[in-house]
């Protein structure tokens, strides 16, 4: 028999002992071996560890017998292969965040999300490629070379969590985790044709996530179906005593929140049409309009709304995020961990070790250092935080009238490798529709909504109220019943 492909099917088949976790794991490893030389989704594949873990799961005592953890058969991700973005710490694997500064670094502990995945019976397959310290929108700023889009290998998968998006889109794994600061899950999800969710700020523990911008960063899931995403999200969501910024709000049963029949009657969708004026490619616009019609077809109502300050999200984002990054990345000094350059004085040690940072990381540290420096702090940083408050207020007012806000996830389809690397500002504008949700701390999802004429995927973005990921997953579930979602033809690669 052919092996199940989606997480929930894999879990059911492994639990019923129809297939073994080892068979599923080998299939994932085989696909990675075959496809990754072309796609470069992974920075590290833990073949030995994954197979050992799978074999250990296969040796679990029969249901109802004593011995191991009670009810491993009921573990929500039993035997499911999962990939992790390489800025999520794993005690058993290298964690580089795509940087030379952390080359060969193996953390002394695993992130809380990793412990939760292991407890849920998942098999961690490896670590995925990303822009260095998650700073980028294409994975081209990875120190270890770019990932490639499975729909067209001459194009980027987006970023910064591009490797995780590719791994799920090319069916190397059914599930992956990424991280977001300004769109780094949703944008690659859109460009690769998979689901990507940026949770509410505080919904998922960041213990063990390598920090970029601490008032914006969140870990979130990639999947190919709403049901799979709901299963994964329910595991990683929730309060963690080791992350003081994780929220204690109750975690609902996201799987139960799915529609069951694709009916989202009563859902009020707000469309901020004035944001769609410039720069949205016609193919993206057409797919977006079609997605709105499908939402209506599933029972939703559309309302025009205004978000007067949302057009300022990118400049605000690049002031706030880079200020925080310049502070967070001061830790890479060659003293306590990571690589160290040869130097005869402490001062030289700092300069020479940090010379190993890539150009984009240096550029952002420079911007952040400037906006926090004496004489400019109020004019740039405080001002940006004030406008951030206005952006948040725009959404609060919108949510008095609608339940979700709809926009294209990205104004363009996947762009060609090298197309934006010479012009940082052009690269930054990749996040024009995504950064506002991070600034406002809101949950937002990218849902595949068809292909353009050149056979490249487009994502619909829905942004919801704080802690209302369930509504976003419901809408994703409804849409996936109305769109035939084709997969990229990776077997011809």
């Amino acid at each position, binding site marked *: 028999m052919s092996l199940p492909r989606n997480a929930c099917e894999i879990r059911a088949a492994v639990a019923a002992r129809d297939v073994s976790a080892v068979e599923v794991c080998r299939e994932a490893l085989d696909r990675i071996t075959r496809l990754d030389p072309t796609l470069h989704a992974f920075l590290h594949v833990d073949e030995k560890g994954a197979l050992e873990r799978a074999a250990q799961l296969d040796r679990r005592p029969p249901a109802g017998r004593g011995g191991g953890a009670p009810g491993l058969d009921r573990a929500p991700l039993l035997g499911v292969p999962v990939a992790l973005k390489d800025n999520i710490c794993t005690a058993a694997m290298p964690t580089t965040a795509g940087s030379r500064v952390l080359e060969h670094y193996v953390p002394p502990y695993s992130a809380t999300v990793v412990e939760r995945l292991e407890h849920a019976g998942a098999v961690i397959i490896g670590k995925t490629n990303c822009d260095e310290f998650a700073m980028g929108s294409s994975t081209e700023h990875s120190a270890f070379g770019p990932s490639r889009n499975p729909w067209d290998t001459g194009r980027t998968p987006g970023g910064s969590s591009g490797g995780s998006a590719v791994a799920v889109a090319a069916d190397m794994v059914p599930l992956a985790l990424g991280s977001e600061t300004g769109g780094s899950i949703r944008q690659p999800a859109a460009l690769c044709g998979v689901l990507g969710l940026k949770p509410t700020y505080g919904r998922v523990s960041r213990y063990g996530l390598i920090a970029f911008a601490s008032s914006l960063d969140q870990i979130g899931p990639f999947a190919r179906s709403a049901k799979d995403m709901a299963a994964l999200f329910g595991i990683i969501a929730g309060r963690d005593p080791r992350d003081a*910024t994780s*929220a204690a709000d109750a975690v609902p049963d996201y799987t139960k929140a799915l529609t069951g029949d694709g009916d989202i009657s009563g859902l009020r969708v707000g469309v901020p049409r004035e944001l769609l004026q410039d720069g949205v490619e016609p193919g993206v616009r057409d797919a977006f309009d079609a997605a709105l019609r499908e939402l209506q077809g599933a029972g939703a109502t559309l309302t025009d709304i205004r978000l007067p*300050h949302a057009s300022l999200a990118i*400049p605000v984002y690049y002031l706030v995020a880079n200020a925080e990054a310049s502070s967070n990345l001061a830790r890479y000094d060659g003293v306590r961990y990571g690589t160290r350059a040869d130097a005869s*004085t*402490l001062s030289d040690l700092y300069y020479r070790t940090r010379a190993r940072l890539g150009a984009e990381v240096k550029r952002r540290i*420079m911007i952040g250092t400037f906006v926090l420096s004496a004489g400019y702090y109020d*004019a740039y940083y405080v001002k940006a935080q004030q406008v951030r408050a*206005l952006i948040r207020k725009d959404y609060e007012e919108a949510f008095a009238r609608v339940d979700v806000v709809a926009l294209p996830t990205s104004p363009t389809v996947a762009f060609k490798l090298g197309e934006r690397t010479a012009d940082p500002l052009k690269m930054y504008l990749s996040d024009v529709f995504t950064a506002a949700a991070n*600034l406002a701390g809101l949950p937002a999802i990218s849902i595949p909504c068809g292909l353009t004429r050149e056979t490249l995927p487009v994502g619909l973005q829905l942004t919801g109220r704080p802690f209302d990921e369930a509504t976003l997953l419901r809408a994703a579930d409804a849409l996936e019943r109305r769109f035939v979602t084709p997969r990229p033809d990776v077997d011809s690669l």
Partner: protein
Amino acid sequence: MSMAETFTRADIERIARLARLELTPDEVTLFAGQLTAILGYADQVRQVDTSGVEAAALPASGSIGSREDEPGPSLDRDVVMSQAPAADRAAGLFKVPRVLGS
């Protein structure tokens, strides 16, 4: 009307020193142009009327609160020190090159 900054090579070198970044002469030239463009783009933020608006620090987000300041379990010191490029684990010290005379 614009208050945008223009970054000279000297400005870039000053900021790089604050951040302990060693830049090549080419990077100094490149960043002078790029920071001028990027901060120029960000200048639209400075034009917004924000009188009476309180600066947002963290996104308001559910029940995130502080905890009692009580010591709890932490990472094992030996394990942490084993990550250091140079350390005296017995003494519990990280080793660095000389600090003075730089």
